[in-house]
């Protein structure tokens, strides 16, 4: 995956950039929307809008940041409609109640570790689902290495507000993951 802060220049670079950034972008959108099919749609739309206005931006420098900002805005817009967002198609594409994402190859781990890892992943997933969308976005952006200042810009909130969002998200998630945190501490 591309490191933060890199972006496309020419056409080949543009495609390479999309290939490199799409997995994380879709994963981020899917986590916000809880719907993989819709997330792909949103991300494609965001890429297009960004590339159509490529001349207005310094994409090599700001591409990833702009992409995540566009995705965040689009997801918040979609999710705040307070409408049922369940889709018949998504059931087969990894929707909320559809098949879960396939686990990665964890063959290097011992079976009990694999089991625990899966439990942890599921618990993290459930914990994230408990969070309000802006808190979820803030925490995920933080986990991706964005600074508080950048998160504030991406979410269009003040820097202190971004800090509050992250703090509350961590509190809620920590409470949900308390059993795992205890094991880790031990």
């Amino acid at each position: 995956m591309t490191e933060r802060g890199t972006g496309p220049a020419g056409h080949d670079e543009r495609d390479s950039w999309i290939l490199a950034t799409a997995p994380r972008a879709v994963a981020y959108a899917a986590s916000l929307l809880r719907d993989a099919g819709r997330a792909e749609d949103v991300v494609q739309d965001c890429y297009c809008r960004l590339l159509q206005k490529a001349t207005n931006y310094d994409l090599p420098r700001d591409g990833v940041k702009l992409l995540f900002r566009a995705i965040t805005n689009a997801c918040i817009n979609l999710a705040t409609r307070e409408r049922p967002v369940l889709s018949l198609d998504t059931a087969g594409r990894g929707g909320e109640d559809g098949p879960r994402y396939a686990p990665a190859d964890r063959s290097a781990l011992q079976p009990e570790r694999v089991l625990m890892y899966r439990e942890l992943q599921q618990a993290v997933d459930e914990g994230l689902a408990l969070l309000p969308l802006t808190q979820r976005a803030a925490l995920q952006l933080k986990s991706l290495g964005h600074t508080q200042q950048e998160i504030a810009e991406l979410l269009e909130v003040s820097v202190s507000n971004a800090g509050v969002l992250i703090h509350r998200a961590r509190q809620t998630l920590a409470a949900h993951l308390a059993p795992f945190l205890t094991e880790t501490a031990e």
Partner: protein
Amino acid sequence: MNEPPLEQWVRDALEERARTVDAAKILDGVHTRLAASSPRVATRGLRRRRWLWRAALAAAVFLAAFWGLQLRPQPASAEMIVRQALQKAQEEPLDRCYQVVHELKPGQMEGSMLLPLQGETRLWTRGGRFWIEPVRRPGTWAWGRDEQGRVWVAPAPQLGFRFAADEVPPALAQFCDLFHLQMDTLLQDALAHCDLHREEPASATEIIRAELKPGHQARTLRSAVLEIDTQSKAVRRLVLVRNFQRATAQVAFTLVETRPQAEVRYRLEDHLQQGARVHTVRQEALRLLEKLRRTVKTPRP
């Protein structure tokens, strides 16, 4: 105790999802969408060139004024105002939302096949696509047309009907023509087939009346009143009289917002709950809709 590794776990969860994403599929999707929107890119190039011409014209006007020429601005004609509105419509974002109020005559609801038509509705439109839902209780019902021209009806979140583009029942197609609004097409029709009259401008609005020229046909349009923002040139409100069921019907559209919408919003599935039943075979769908129409009181305006 060390800081809990929450962020690491969240990052792991994200990476886990990312591993399952087919990046090539996303790239293909982006290529397809960019190719589909390439005329807009071309338009942008033209727009830039047009801007240069405008700048040149502005410079010429400035020079003329500088050399003492008297250039009195002529009041814009109705046609020019509509042309400016058309240009604006073509430049603005594609997804527009209108509040819709209709006046149907008694009997014109026949054949509506449980279309949710009561009260004020909200129309979202992008080109030939649209969906309509109630203003007061969004999410309870909707109907529309998707990117494949398929017309769908969701009288309740648990039940949907969809007709292929070439299988849309004529009555339903008529309601589509009545309630859908494609701004650029409408303005082109008005320019080509209507006599245009400009009323005395209100404070910030130009009012243009369009009447179908004798012997002309403009799809379903009979007449229109356009309210165009003087500054932005955007059409803020339209009252259309359209041919409908061998008579006419009046529909008023008021622009609410322009905001990009996800493609899925124009599809049936996005307006249904999970597990909802979808009927796609025409005869079956028609039979069920007719049955529903008989058992459920058809909403009246």
